[in-house]
């Protein structure tokens, strides 16, 4: 019998398929699910779309998938700290859909909490509002941003328990709780440590296990 939501490497690898949209936590090389990136690479899947805050530093997270040539398109807010990403984008080898970081984060949250869309002022007047629905509230114009969902969510966390409850540490938290919330087909956590039930504690758990399908052993 399985012990809660703890899964082996091989069971996790089975989740990856060609053409999936992968939502990944992390900022720069902080809080990226490196063990899960290993497994994506090991699975040999291709033509991925990724959703992440940025392209990570080369050699970490999304950056490793990029180097392996398995990403067709990135939805992200920033690739400036990864020279390879900048070059692939400039030469047309990589499609990048830019979205402001706060809007992207909010869209991931919306796509994990039954909110279809929301209005923000972010980027009004810059041109990114083109093609979006605009709405006036209290004399100011806002643009409609819609929920974003992926197929597989990859989450890095400090601690997990067998129920899938997760806790984060420092700025390695970054987008990970939002990625974990997002309504993907499968949500997989890569914890630094696996603790016993109740060891994290009710107040310290940030992502309840109800959001998490698998914890990589």
């Amino acid at each position, binding site marked *: 019998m399985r012990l809660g939501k703890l899964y082996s490497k091989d069971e996790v690898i089975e989740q990856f398929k060609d053409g999936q949209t992968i939502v990944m936590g992390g900022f720069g090389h902080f809080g990226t699910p490196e063990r899960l990136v290993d497994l994506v690479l090991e699975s040999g899947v291709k033509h991925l779309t990724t959703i992440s805050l940025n392209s990570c530093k080369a050699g970490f997270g999304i950056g490793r998938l990029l180097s392996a040539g398995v990403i067709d398109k990135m939805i992200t807010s920033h690739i400036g700290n990864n020279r390879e990403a900048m070059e692939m984008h400039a030469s047309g080898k990589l499609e990048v859909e830019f979205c402001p970081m706060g809007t992207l984060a909010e869209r991931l949250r919306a796509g994990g909490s039954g909110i279809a869309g929301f209005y923000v002022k972010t980027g009004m007047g810059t041109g990114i509002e083109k093609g979006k629905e605009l709405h006036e509230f209290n004399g100011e114009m806002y643009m409609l941003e819609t929920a974003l969902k992926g197929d597989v969510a990859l989450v890095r966390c400090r601690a997990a328990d*067998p129920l899938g409850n997760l806790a984060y540490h420092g700025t390695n938290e970054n987008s990970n709780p939002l990625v974990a919330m997002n309504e993907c087909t499968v949500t997989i956590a890569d914890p630094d440590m696996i603790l016993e039930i109740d060891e994290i504690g009710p107040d310290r*758990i940030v992502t309840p*296990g109800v959001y998490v399908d698998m914890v990589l052993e």
Partner: protein
Amino acid sequence: MDTLNITTSKIDFSKMEPREFIARRVAAMLKPGITVNLGVGIPTMASDFLREGVWVQSENGIIGVGKHAEPGIRKVESYCNASGEEIIPTKGACTFDVNMALGMMRSGRVDATVLGCFEVAENGDLANWTMPGKSPGMGGAMDIICGVPNVIIATRHCNKNGDPKIVKSCSYPLTGVGVVNTIITEYCVMEIRDKHLVLTELRDDITVEELQKITGAPFEVAKDCKEMTIPVPQIVNLYQDFSS
């Protein structure tokens, strides 16, 4: 949400307070491994009778509502259920803000909810938030049913005037449209299938004809309609994976 195939024992229903009976029958229906939201009133009573391994979610921000606390055992009241009653959190519980609690339900992360009602209609419509002269409000009910796939109504069969709460069409403002799957009263269990009521369990001290008289809408009797009983709880392992 099937009842587990376990030993059942005969209980003398006539001696049990109807609300407790309903709460016990609801509890027996909830399968270990699921996460269930329990609403104000009879539903929160069910938490005292649940099998281990059933996770109770409450819209005030917790997964892992356990039994009601004995008055005075602790100095600081730090955990409550949807009825605002003090409870003991279960092992493995976690708490969060109400935004996450309701967002979790809107996005379908909670398997089932048990709610009370003023009226429930044969097509699954639910009215439980306002009626002339009495408006408790919807609380989290509207948010809950917009995402939770299995809506169970736990209610007395009739209201305080003796009128049926199960009706052809709700006369009070709705809380949800066509959302109810199952109704549990002190007399019976009914399922709503294709906008019609189907009786699946009936107490042995009431007949189908008697039940129809106190029910405001026609119902079909399921071929496999059973006697309404309360199965004996089963001990389970908290770590167990019930998903398969």
